[in-house]
């Protein structure tokens, strides 16, 4: 079951790299977040404690409902629906994504960590999410796409955490979740301000500060 979720996560990353419609991208990231929220519950299905259940519920609520809501609000303010001519075209993005997937599997095998989790797909999937998120931040122009890239990166790091640290202290996980929430919140407000000031949210056009 864990394997299936991780394969689905990899497919959602590929879909993100190929998607040009921002609304679809936000939904895909939400689905990814929800699936990853289920991971620790599945990994500990035998000794399910209140803290895991609460964390899973919190993660799913946050990533599945709150983040999309914040981002859709930012989209509506900016009145955009699609990505603009990205730096790297969509088919090339898929090919780069496949190369990144191969690299993640290769790297995952050589990383000197023993996966505590139930599946050997955890480390490659985590690395792939991180690389896909970085690629989105670098290769896309709309600010909302960059926020999505950051979220995908956080998802990847979270997957990594589930895999290699047997039990993270509850408070730390809560802190991380809170940080992610505040980050998306802050970025949403930033996008609103940028749109109001510049009348666009294409970050490649923010280039007045040089040198």
């Amino acid at each position, binding site marked *: 079951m864990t394997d299936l979720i991780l394969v689905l996560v990899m497919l959602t990353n590929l879909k993100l790299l190929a998607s040009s419609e921002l609304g679809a991208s936000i939904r895909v990231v939400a689905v990814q977040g929800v699936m990853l929220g289920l991971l620790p519950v599945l990994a500990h299905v035998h000794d399910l404690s209140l803290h895991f259940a609460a964390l899973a519920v919190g993660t799913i609520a946050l990533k599945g409902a709150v983040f999309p809501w914040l981002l859709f609000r930012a989209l509506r303010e900016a009145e955009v629906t699609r990505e603009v001519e990205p730096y790297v075209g969509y088919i090339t993005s898929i090919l780069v994504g496949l190369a990144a997937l191969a690299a993640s599997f290769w790297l995952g095998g050589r990383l000197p960590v023993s996966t505590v989790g139930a599946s050997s797909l955890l480390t490659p999937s985590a690395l792939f999410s991180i690389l896909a998120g970085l690629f989105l931040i670098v290769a896309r122009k709309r600010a909302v796409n960059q926020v999505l890239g950051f979220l995908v990166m956080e998802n990847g*790091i979270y997957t*990594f955490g589930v895999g290699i640290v047997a039990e993270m*202290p509850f408070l*730390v996980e809560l802190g991380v979740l809170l*940080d992610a929430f505040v980050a998306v919140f802050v970025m949403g407000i*930033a996008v609103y301000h940028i749109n109001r000031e510049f009348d666009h949210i294409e970050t490649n056009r923010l280039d007045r500060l040089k040198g």
Partner: protein
Amino acid sequence: MKHEALLWLLILVPAVTGALALLLRSARTILGTMCAGVGISVALGWYVAGKVLVSGPVSAGAEWLYLDALSAYNLGVMLLIYGLSSAYAWVYFGTELREEHLTLKQARLFASLWCGALAAMTLVFISNNLGIMWVGIEATTLLTGFLICVHVTGESLEAMWKYILICSVGVAFAFMGTLLVGASTHGLGLRAPEVLLWTTLHAHAASLNPACLKAAFIFLLVGYGTKAGLAPMHNWLPDAHSQAPAPVSAIFSGFMLNTALYCVMRYVPIVEAGTGNTGWGLRLLIGFGLISILVAAAFILFQHDLKRLLAYHSVEHIGIITLGVGLGGLGTFAALFHTLNHSLCKTLAFFAAGRLGQMFGTHNMTKLAGAMRVAPVWGVGLFGSLLALIGLAPFALFMSELQILKAAMDSGAILVLVLFLFGAGVVFVGALGHAIPLVWGKTTATVQPARAGVLETLLVVLPLVLLLVLGLWMPGPFQTALNAAADVIRHVNPVSAVSLGGVTP
């Protein structure tokens, strides 16, 4: 028990002040409350830090909060900078209020975020749990993001967006590193809450998985290095520091960069002991430090904007501190000394730049020419701080840089020595080339000469005097405190000449 309560208060006081600031009605009251709250925190913090430096580490909250010599020293320096900057903010925004450039909403935003950032940075220093330390750093990124665009302009928004995105990505990498450090304890049988406690990791450092630690350190250095402004991850720094209002730039350069570097310093003894004391991690630090110095030197040569120039100076000095920590031994001592010196100096420089910018209406150095004639007090402040920044004797920065040079010489790292001197030399020439016309050139703008008040004069004189005094004489207790702090980082052997590829003495 009393100390434990104090540790909790250190976070609560700024948090409460920040919340309070949101409720008040007059901008002046808000600024005043903010200064008062910061003042209380400074007093409390110095008391606790003094206690720790005298009698040893203090911990609270089931060992989740912990203050030892290193964090106490850094806490002390931070509170000094925060105190000075809050006083300056009173002056700076006071002028803006008089000219009606500051609205009530902006004042509330500024004060609450200012206090919130103080609380977050305090959290970084007093937390023993490396995960919570990470949460603190990420919190500082998010809270200070909007401090950059208190005044919303196109450039400040651009700077803020770059800052938030680049630093969040960097700090996310740092979290990967934290996870890897946690994973390196696999097999030691530690209980879950202890896995990320620094004291536990420090105690077990020799038995951690070295390969894991190496991978972790790379992520941590790149991640926290982004936040600290190490090249080549420093791209956000010039924009953010130049677009933020002067008090905020002072805090950024004066303390936030050091906070991120402190996080790296926390990991150094663990990584060193874990990788068998081969100096692997230290060599990485030296590399990044040198790159930062050289990159900053290159960019300083052709700056037009005063605050951008100061921002690149920050990159250079963070590089020097990193280099010092990497050299070990005397270098670590000098690096910690340098954090104090650089913070004081940079803060003063930003104070001056800010006030002059207010008077002249611009930060462009050609338009600011002849500042000494128009505003003698701040002109002296600016020139003095610029001189100190480039390492002129007998200011304290000269002493700390000299000590780092000596450490490099002792280790036989001749190449490091040469590159450092080259970079410092370029910076010297470049910055002086900017500074002299700035202060004594022909005044091109018609500006009313402004008289500086008592508080402003104090804000200029105090740091300069401190820097001069420390450059000439290091008080005994201060030296002991510095050594205690440095010992936390370097309880391993200093880097040997052979491992640096230098001449064997």
